[in-house]
């Protein structure tokens, strides 16, 4: 079946502009995660959605970052007033989230470059 998809694959923007990144999880997966991967650093957790529960936003680096998940499926990560330090690959993952060992499947990522 189809895996996690993300769009766009690449996004170049100017400092100060807002960007929206989209994630389509695997059909039937109730949990959705956003991670960020920066050059010279590993993957860092940003936000987690599980079903209809309030999202875990503990990883968002600032209030310029927000995310929503509509209808329990597609998610959009929004970065307002982008800064150069926001340049990174933004990865989305989804899982069934029924047990502690459910595998998180990752999408290909969106490479964001802030000029």
């Amino acid at each position: 079946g189809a895996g996690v998809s993300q769009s766009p694959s690449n996004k170049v923007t100017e400092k100060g502009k807002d960007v929206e990144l989209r994630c389509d999880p695997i059909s039937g997966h109730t949990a959705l995660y956003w991670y960020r991967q920066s050059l010279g650093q590993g993957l860092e957790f940003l936000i987690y959605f599980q079903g209809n529960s309030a999202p875990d936003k503990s990883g968002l680096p600032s209030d310029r970052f927000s995310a929503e998940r509509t209808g329990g499926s597609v998610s959009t990560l929004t970065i307002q007033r982008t800064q150069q330090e926001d340049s990174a690959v933004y990865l989305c993952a989804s899982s069934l989230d029924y047990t502690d060992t459910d595998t998180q499947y990752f999408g290909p990522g969106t490479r964001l470059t802030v000029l």
Partner: protein
Amino acid sequence: GESVGLHLPTLSVQEGDNSIINCAYSNSASDYFIWYKQESGKGPQFIIDIRSNMDKRQGQRVTVLLNKTVKHLSLQIAATQPGDSAVYFCAEKMSRRKAAGNKLTFGGGTRVLVKP
């Protein structure tokens, strides 16, 4: 997604040899550990996992070893092939009885280069 490019520890291995990738994890309360493989331009791909009540688990050509005493995880790849060239990340998480959600904490990654 492109892998982390700069300042990654690199393991060069001859094709056909065995590879061992090491990871020191941070949280003694973690219950579950995963190894991911990330090829250039792609997202991380699940390889193998292990629960904290185990110390070894084997898959196809891969073995994960867990030493909770020293908080160390390793991934062994048998008969390394050119297709194994990638960046490998370990990840850890706590069970839900300890923490809300299934968020993963990732290690910094190791680049494996397979020489023909």
